[in-house]
């Protein structure tokens, strides 16, 4: 196991120098919501604006050429980062938009008489899980409503694992949409196995990789999914950018969600034809500078090494779980061990509401997230309205874990 030189890495993140609530050291344990950004990313965006800014794919002046090159280079870098071909990567605003794009492909194809692979019929089933983030849940409710398909889901076991009931995957299953890593439980799901089961019945596999791509090496080939969505802002990149990866043959047939400039082939007043992918899915002037920033983020992560990052996070997660288990009245929601588990640690405290716990932590300089973390049904499954979640990234260290534990103890004492 390579250890990260966190002290050195932290110098790359300007925000970590600030203090909060008076003079408290900032202990940022909310990377599951959004990550902080290194200078490399901020500088890449700024250089783009100061030197090359122009609309892409549209001009033949020098700035337009340079901007187009930078944007397409970003696509190639992101594709390389996940082991994909460049033209299989579509830039979106965030992962939510990426997942909606897949969902709309199905409802639009069904309503417009589109390609068969995207057409759903009453009786067809969409299979999701009880641990999904709302982004990979609500869009499928909409698809089901619009197409007459039925929504079904895998449950979650008491220790926070997916209850992979094989009986749920049948000839009726057309779509299996599942998160790679739960943003609440930290659970890493066996996507390759699920994909195999799904493909055996001809279903399409959609993976929400928001919490995996930033934290461990993900190769879309190995994953075996058909669609993979993730967000730039959770992987050191700017806000305002996300990605959808799709298998080239599916992308080729997939109808667009948004229409307008730059995604067309020919336009007449009464009808239009659309461009090939990825252009077909990027209507209007895109989030160019954000793509350039994400390019820099991928390079940064690659330079540090995804395996080292993952190992480091698992180490911190282990310390956090151990420390929390030592505090009377704390219960962790999610796997108790470190097997197939990422760096989100959610917990509840006897007699202290997460909002209050989070407030005391905030007062101690520790930024965690409290609430249902956009996974309300999962919380209902555990009969709790909310949890407190600490999530780690490459810039966190053992001191951060210690501060989390101390703050948690302080909260329990305060409300005792």
């Amino acid at each position, binding site marked *: 196991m390579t250890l990260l030189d966190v002290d050195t890495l932290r110098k790359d993140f300007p925000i970590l120098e600030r203090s909060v609530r008076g003079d408290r050291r900032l202990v940022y344990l909310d990377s599951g919501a959004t990550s902080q950004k290194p200078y490399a990313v901020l500088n890449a965006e700024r250089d783009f604006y100061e030197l090359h800014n122009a609309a892409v794919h549209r001009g033949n002046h020098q700035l337009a050429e340079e901007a187009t090159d930078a944007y397409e280079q970003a696509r190639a870098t992101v594709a390389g980062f996940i082991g994909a071909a460049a033209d299989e990567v579509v830039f979106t605003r965030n992962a939510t938009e990426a997942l909606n794009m897949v969902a709309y492909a199905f409802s639009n194809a069904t309503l417009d008489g589109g390609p068969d692979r995207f057409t759903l019929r009453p009786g067809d089933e969409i299979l999701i899980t009880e641990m999904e983030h709302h982004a990979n849940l609500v869009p499928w409710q909409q698809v089901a409503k619009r197409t007459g398909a039925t929504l079904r889901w895998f449950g979650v076991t008491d220790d926070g694992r997916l209850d992979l009931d094989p009986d749920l995957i049948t000839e009726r299953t057309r779509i299996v949409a599942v998160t790679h890593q739960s943003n609440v439980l930290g659970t890493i799901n066996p996507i390759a196995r699920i994909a195999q089961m799904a493909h055996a019945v001809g279903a399409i596999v959609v993976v929400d990789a928001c919490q995996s791509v930033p934290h461990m090496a993900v190769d879309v080939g190995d994953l075996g999914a058909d669609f993979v969505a993730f967000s730039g802002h959770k992987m050191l990149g700017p806000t305002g950018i996300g990605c959808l990866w799709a298998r080239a043959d599916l992308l080729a047939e997939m109808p667009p969600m948004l229409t307008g400039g730059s995604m067309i082939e020919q336009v007449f007043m009464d009808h239009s034809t659309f461009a090939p992918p990825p252009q077909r899915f990027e209507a209007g002037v895109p989030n160019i500078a954000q793509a350039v920033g994400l390019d820099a983020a991928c390079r940064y992560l690659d330079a540090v090494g995804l395996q080292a990052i993952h190992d480091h996070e698992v180490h911190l997660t282990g310390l956090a779980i151990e420390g929390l288990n030592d505090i009377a009245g704390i219960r962790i929601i999610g796997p108790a061990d470190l097997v197939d588990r990422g760096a989100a640690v959610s917990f509840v405290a006897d007699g202290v*509401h997460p909002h209050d716990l989070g*407030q005391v932590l905030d007062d101690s300089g520790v930024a965690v997230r409290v609430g249902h973390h956009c996974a309300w049904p999962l919380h209902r499954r555990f009969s709790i309205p909310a949890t407190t979640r600490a999530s780690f990234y490459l810039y966190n260290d053992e001191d951060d874990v210690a501060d989390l534990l101390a703050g948690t103890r302080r909260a329990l004492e305060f409300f005792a």
Partner: protein
Amino acid sequence: MNMETLYQEIILDHYRNPRGKGLREPFGAQVHHVNPTCGDEITLRVQVDEGVIQDISYDATGCSISQAATSVMYEQLVGQPLDQVWPVVEEFVRLIEGRGKVEPNEDVLGDGIAFAGVASFPARVKCALLGWMAFKDATLQALGKDFT
């Protein structure tokens, strides 16, 4: 702004010993409100009779701020005539949403002024208002019924 400003002793007291908690009969209207950010919920009933708030009964899950704010509300408003209730509700909302820039009016608010600190923690504003908004909604419904 530190935590102690937020968690006044009186808030912790109401949190630990909520007044008027539980659902009771009779009631003129019942509402269910949810805080979509944290999942906190309240079921609240209001009984209005002869222009007076006869009872506010409630069942809620939530943080200390939302629990205490509802408990304080119970103490402040039950037994009050409607025309004295609205100014209190209005002033409480104004204080909580005032981002720390509104001087709390103790004459109107009574114990409610203990929540002045909440105004400096925007993420807690909805907590403090959960019960009060439910009360407003329920009372308007109850009155709507009265009038028909």
